[in-house]
């Protein structure tokens, strides 16, 4: 890990900006759900903010990502428009998917966010295909497949990693290992220590990093992205992390190890990075407070506009089933 490139101060601040947006947005979503204003299944990414933030600083709008139901952090880090996000969560016609997708199917092709799937493991085969498209385009684009530790036990993982390696596709497989697949601990559901060890079986590099550490996460992602852009093929990154709000918001969480949970909260990457930025003189407390207040203000605007917007007309049921409207 020590030979990884490190983020410079400006990049580190950029990572924090993205991560702060994810955290504050998550907190606001939960508040709105508790107030009964948003009704949806919600898979909170709280605790996993650093992973996509540290990856996305090395991506452009041309690069593709596919993610899963717990994927709002991946979307926001890549630049998903906040107004359209809130409108989509509220099921309004002004949402990015006209309210027809919801939190589990967020899509924004203009920013390279091609597919969000609600099916465990299904981001990988499609991201592999986007990697094929990227390779054919010849524009040095890369394709990121986000998925969880649970998805590494599904057949699609094997088929996708094998095909991407055989075809030397510019795909980065990012396994966000938050230690639980729904209610099942990762220790229970595999007989190896590291998911990244599986990469050897496909002939691609595999690394396990602390996904909550911006230096390690940035470095591993940068190396994998550069490798993919250079035409050298895919990489599997296992990014260790934790999710603070369980699998589905509102669950009891009895399956979680209390000691593990307490330790993870102590290791919450957000206050750690914030304190580091101040300690290293990268940003003052006042600068960060302003940055956070600005994010909160943007969320205020986005959610107010979302609730003011109309719901989609029922005629939308006949649209987008096919390109041609159903008679």
């Amino acid at each position, binding site marked *: 890990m020590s030979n990884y490139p490190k983020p410079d101060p400006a990049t580190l601040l950029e990572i924090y900006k993205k991560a702060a947006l994810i955290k504050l947005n998550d907190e606001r979503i939960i508040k709105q759900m508790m107030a009964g204003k948003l009704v949806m299944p919600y898979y909170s990414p709280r605790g996993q903010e650093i992973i996509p933030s540290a990856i996305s600083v090395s991506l452009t709008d041309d690069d593709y990502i596919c993610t899963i139901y717990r994927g709002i952090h991946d979307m926001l880090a890549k630049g998903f428009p906040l107004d359209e996000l809130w409108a989509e969560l509220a099921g309004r016609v002004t949402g990015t998917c006209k309210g027809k997708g919801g939190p589990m199917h967020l899509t924004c*092709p203009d920013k390279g966010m091609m597919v969000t799937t609600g*099916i465990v493991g299904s981001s990988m085969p499609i991201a592999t295909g986007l990697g094929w498209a990227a390779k054919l385009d010849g524009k040095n684009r890369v394709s990121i497949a986000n998925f969880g530790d649970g998805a590494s036990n599904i057949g699609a993982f094997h088929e996708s990693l094998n095909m991407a390696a055989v075809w030397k596709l510019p795909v980065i497989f990012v396994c966000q290992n938050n230690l639980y697949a729904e209610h099942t601990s990762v220790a229970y559901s595999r007989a190896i220590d590291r998911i990244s060890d599986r990469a050897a079986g496909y002939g691609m590099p595999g690394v396990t990093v602390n996904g909550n550490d911006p230096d390690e996460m940035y470095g591993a992602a940068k190396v994998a992205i550069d490798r993919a852009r250079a035409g050298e093929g895919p990489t599997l990154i296992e990014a260790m992390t934790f999710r603070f709000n369980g699998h589905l918001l509102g669950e009891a969480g009895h399956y979680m190890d209390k000691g593990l949970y307490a330790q993870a909260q102590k290791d919450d990457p957000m206050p750690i990075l914030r304190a580091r930025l101040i300690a290293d003189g990268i940003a003052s407390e006042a600068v960060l407070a302003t940055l956070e207040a600005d994010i909160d203000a943007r969320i205020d605007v986005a959610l107010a506009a979302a609730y003011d917007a109309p719901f989609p007309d029922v005629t939308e049921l006949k649209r*987008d089933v096919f390109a041609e409207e159903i008679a």
Partner: protein
Amino acid sequence: MTDTTTTTAPADAKVKKMTAVEAINLALHDAMEADAKVLVLGEEVADPQEGGVMGVTKGLSTKFGEDRVKSTPISEQAIIGAAIGAAVGGYKPVAEIMLMNFVTVAMDMIINHAAKLRFMSGGQTGVPMVIRTMTGAGFSTGGQHSDYWEAWFAHSPGIKVVAPSNPDDAYGLMRAAIDDPDPVLFIENLPSYWTPAPVTKQIIPIGKARIAREGSDVTVIAHSLMVTHSLAVAEKLAGEGVSVEVIDLRTISPWDKETVLASVRKTGRAVVVHEAVKQFGIGAEIASVITEELWGTLKRPVERVGAAFSSVPFSKPLETAFAPQPDTIAAAIKAALA
């Protein structure tokens, strides 16, 4: 408006006879030549692996290169996933799932993703891909190599289903399927793969049926190999003074209600024939719509002909008894005329 046509064998001497294998191969060649975005992938589709298990994709990789024509590992989820990704990324992939029973391995990719991404994204993305697959009883391939599962897909919004009955339609529907903005499942009948017939190279619109034979006493609605069987029965019954109209659906979803209803309005009697198991087959939907729309004009209940409610059997007499044959179709027509 329907633009159905009554086709007889083209008289033009320049129209070449070819098999369905050759016609689909030609359609792929022509489509790849016309549009650099057209890709082909699947198990053994490239020439080093012999251009497909039946040779349908022969010559494509030699002509267009192995970047565009890719043999894959035996990985149906990854094949369909790669096709979806390429389609969302701006390409027009034609993915081969060798046999229709093997689509089961890729159902999540087909149903949850290919068929739904356009709707779930509010029209921001689309999946212009074709899934080619072959099937059909008759070669003693048993329970996992010859089923017709078109009803599963016709029941799924967002994917179109096409099943040509002859080489001319195979060419024309393949060209249309490749250019369609939505995913199309293209079902090829294996036992009739090598039956030559004239190919005019006309593109055939998806969603339009063809009146394969005009008649006035009863309408038979069929697709794929059952059209061939139904035409043979119609010819035989003509000798007995029965005038049978045969409609080749060509597209199963979205099906051409207008052409079917116009015909049954005329004849007052209908028989739906498919090789798939009768129970919950597409015949049930078609019979239901005919009954709903034409209740007052029907002279008899709509007859349905389909396979027995069993797995496709291996033993030859069982296999023959399982799938609809000309005599079972003839019996259903006579029941409709009673």
